[in-house]
């Protein structure tokens, strides 16, 4: 008898446009615009503009509209968590992934075979999003951004202690934080609030709008100010956020001798933490680290793991040395020489 996971390769394919479900005629997180797209979360590498029909959580749709306006999609359909929707013969349902607000894993069921597309996910508690839910399945498609055993994110608390220490050393210097506008920025703000920092936090325009959306969706981030709207205010000792691609030149004259800060799982490795020449590297990530990745695979306990996004080699090696079937998602449908 054939394994259910083996059968999945006959109806779920990796194409140029992205992961394609043939019997349902839809894509999950397509890289190019398509007729029908299911979106795990609103980050740019998963949610592209220009799709005709889009199925996603209301939060994800809200962020897509914020980012793409009318180009978010012709027909946007919001799904509630756990609700089962039939697309042709395929049943689809969404479960929290814990990555950013509205992020989901998508379960696809067809002819008795269950495939979970995890999208990006994390297991650490995050005040801005729902916790990851373990969904039993035959095939688990996992990200492996931090798929190397050197990646073990320290507790957020110890990273915030580091931040507090540096601020105590330099009470007059502005803490200048680089962070993605969606997810990382709000998570950091929420963690700062949790650590008892309740002063106003200054944000760059695009981050300010994303935070507004978060607050409207019920996530409390405390008092936020847009940097642009408080010209003339001194930013001495304040916390100022800007997205990674925005240089602080815009208001460089207002920030003297800033403490440049960034937050990422990559900063765990010292040689990488010097690459961006930042003074306060915080090891805080929106992705699972290695212990959480391997633990998740064990909890989900699928027949087969398909690995994408990152260090596939080490993750696949781990799976195989733990008697689990695994392959790189990019090789799905091309045979793996195992059979």
């Amino acid at each position: 008898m054939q394994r259910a996971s083996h059968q999945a390769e006959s109806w779920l394919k990796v194409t140029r446009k992205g992961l394609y479900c043939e019997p349902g005629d839809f894509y999950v997180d397509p890289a190019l615009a398509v007729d029908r797209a299911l979106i795990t979360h609103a980050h740019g590498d998963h949610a592209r503009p220009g799709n005709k029909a889009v199925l996603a959580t209301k939060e994800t749709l809200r962020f897509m509209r914020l980012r793409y306006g009318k180009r978010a999609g012709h027909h946007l359909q919001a799904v509630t968590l756990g609700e089962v929707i039939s697309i042709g013969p395929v049943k689809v349902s969404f479960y929290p992934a814990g990555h950013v607000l509205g992020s989901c894993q998508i379960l696809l069921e067809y002819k008795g075979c269950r495939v979970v597309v995890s999208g990006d996910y994390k297991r650490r508690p995050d005040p801005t999003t729902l916790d990851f839910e373990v969904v039993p399945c035959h095939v688990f498609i996992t990200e492996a951004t931090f798929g190397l055993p050197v990646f073990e994110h320290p507790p957020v608390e110890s990273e915030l202690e580091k931040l507090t220490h540096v601020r105590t050393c330099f009470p007059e210097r502005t803490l200048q934080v680089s962070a993605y506008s969606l997810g990382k920025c709000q998570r950091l703000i929420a963690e700062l609030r949790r650590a008892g920092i309740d002063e106003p936090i200054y944000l760059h325009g695009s981050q300010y709008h994303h935070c507004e959306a978060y607050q409207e969706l019920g996530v409390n981030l405390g008092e936020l100010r847009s940097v642009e709207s408080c010209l003339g205010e001194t930013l001495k000792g304040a916390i100022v956020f800007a997205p990674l691609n925005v240089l602080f030149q815009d208001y460089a004259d207002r920030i003297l001798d800033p403490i440049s800060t960034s937050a990422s799982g990559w900063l765990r490795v010292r040689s990488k933490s010097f690459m961006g020449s930042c003074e306060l590297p915080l090891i805080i990530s929106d992705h699972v680290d290695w212990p959480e990745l391997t633990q998740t695979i064990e909890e989900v306990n699928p027949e087969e793991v398909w690995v994408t996004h990152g260090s596939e080699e080490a993750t696949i090696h781990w799976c195989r040395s733990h008697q689990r079937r695994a392959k790189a998602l990019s090789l799905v449908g091309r045979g793996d020489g195992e059979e």
Partner: protein
Amino acid sequence: MKAFSLLLDCLSHASSDEAKIVYLRKYLQDVSASERGYAVGIVTRELNLPAIRLPLLKSRLLDRVDPKLFELSLSFVTDLSETMALLWPAIAEKPISLPDVVTRLNNAEKGEETAVVEDLLNHLPASKRWVVLKLVTARKKPIIAPRLVKAALARWAGKSSQEVAEIWPTLPPPYTELFEWLEGKGERPDVKGRAVFLPMQSAGNFDQTKLNQIKSQDFAVARKWDGLRVQLSSFEQETKLFTSEGDDITALFPDAVKLTTDNSVFEGDLVIVRDGEIQPANELQPRLNRKSATKKLQESHPARFIIDDVLILKGQDVRSRIYSQRYEDLEKYFGDQSNCKVTKTLPCLDEPTLLDLRKATTQERGVVGIRLKRWDAPYEEKNRAGCWLDWLNPPKEARLVLLYAEKGKGAMSPLYSEFTLGTLNQNDAGETLALPVGKSTFEGDKEELASINQWIENNVVERFGPVRSVNLGLVFRVTFGAVQPSARRKSGLILTSLSVEQVLWEESWIEATTRQELLGLMD
């Protein structure tokens, strides 16, 4: 140990010297007295700790982690000790203090050091495992410059850093008496008869456009030797040799400190002299890179001390005397001592002569220019209003190709910043080869260095311990003092005072300067 690992973390990412002082000062304030001395001994590298062999420890790690995952991790992280720190499986974390770590390492029986390190690693989280591995493997370069440590100590205790610097060399880690004094619990340590280090005066750069505003008869003009600026401090109990940063290099140059002086502090240049000729400054490197000077090294690289100033003479502080008086003191004091000499001032009458003098020195081996000292100026730590000026021979330029890279620039730096550079040469078969002509530490922009590192990681050919050979491809614009023959190098040439100015990302390595072209730049 938490505070110390946080300190190292902060220090390695600090954006300025001032930030480093602030971090260290905060640390001194936060931790207990028992920890301070060890910590300071570690960051200055004055504290002796046993060294362990990483390969041995690595094989112990490989008993416990999957070798394939180890290899994949190492190729990503690139640094062996960091990879090991990150992958080491902790059994159960225990609170271990810094003095604990130091005591356990130093009390380890011979041959048991690795086992002690292993036990420490078993009970510490990754960031602290990294600290432990750095303690037992890192090289002797200080983690932060001693002058910054002294500044932080002074600021923390509310003393003058000059006073701290003076007492500093007389006490070994963990500096108990020093800390007692700094904390107001003890007397100022008695330095009578001990070799003190006095803050050194530095020279400014001579501005050639102001040549006509200078009255050359106001200045003592002397050759600027291609050497290391040092201070020799000789007192009843001991004689010590210090770098301008206050690093104690006595053990490295016993041949230069064999002076029969008494209660005096002299200053000058340390040079390597072979066959009566002063060698380029990088000939000092083999001696600076060791922990002590072997007899063989002293013979192959004989060091000499060329004296040009005196701070204390026979117990009398002469820093307030003007240079013409101090120079006279020097000449009177040193008749013909065998292993040191007083620099000769050059006759100088008017401006054109000054220019001619500078030009004439470009022809001399071991000379990088001229140094001007005001005859009527006392010795001062701060170089007020250009009392001392260096007029260096203008540098020459070349485009050299990167051959080898090594991590460096502060013992904790994870970046490749020491580069061996090469010139192109055709062999008999007509093939173009690159041959090394010198080594230089990159001192440019941090982000540029990060890009260079990215390139190096993608282009490693072979590993030789800490050194990586790389594909031919990256070309640097460099400046240097002179081209000199070097029998020990395959190229037969060495470039003195080599410094990297710029990375020529667009340039093909085949466009680099050839050996023939370099020969043409020889004086």
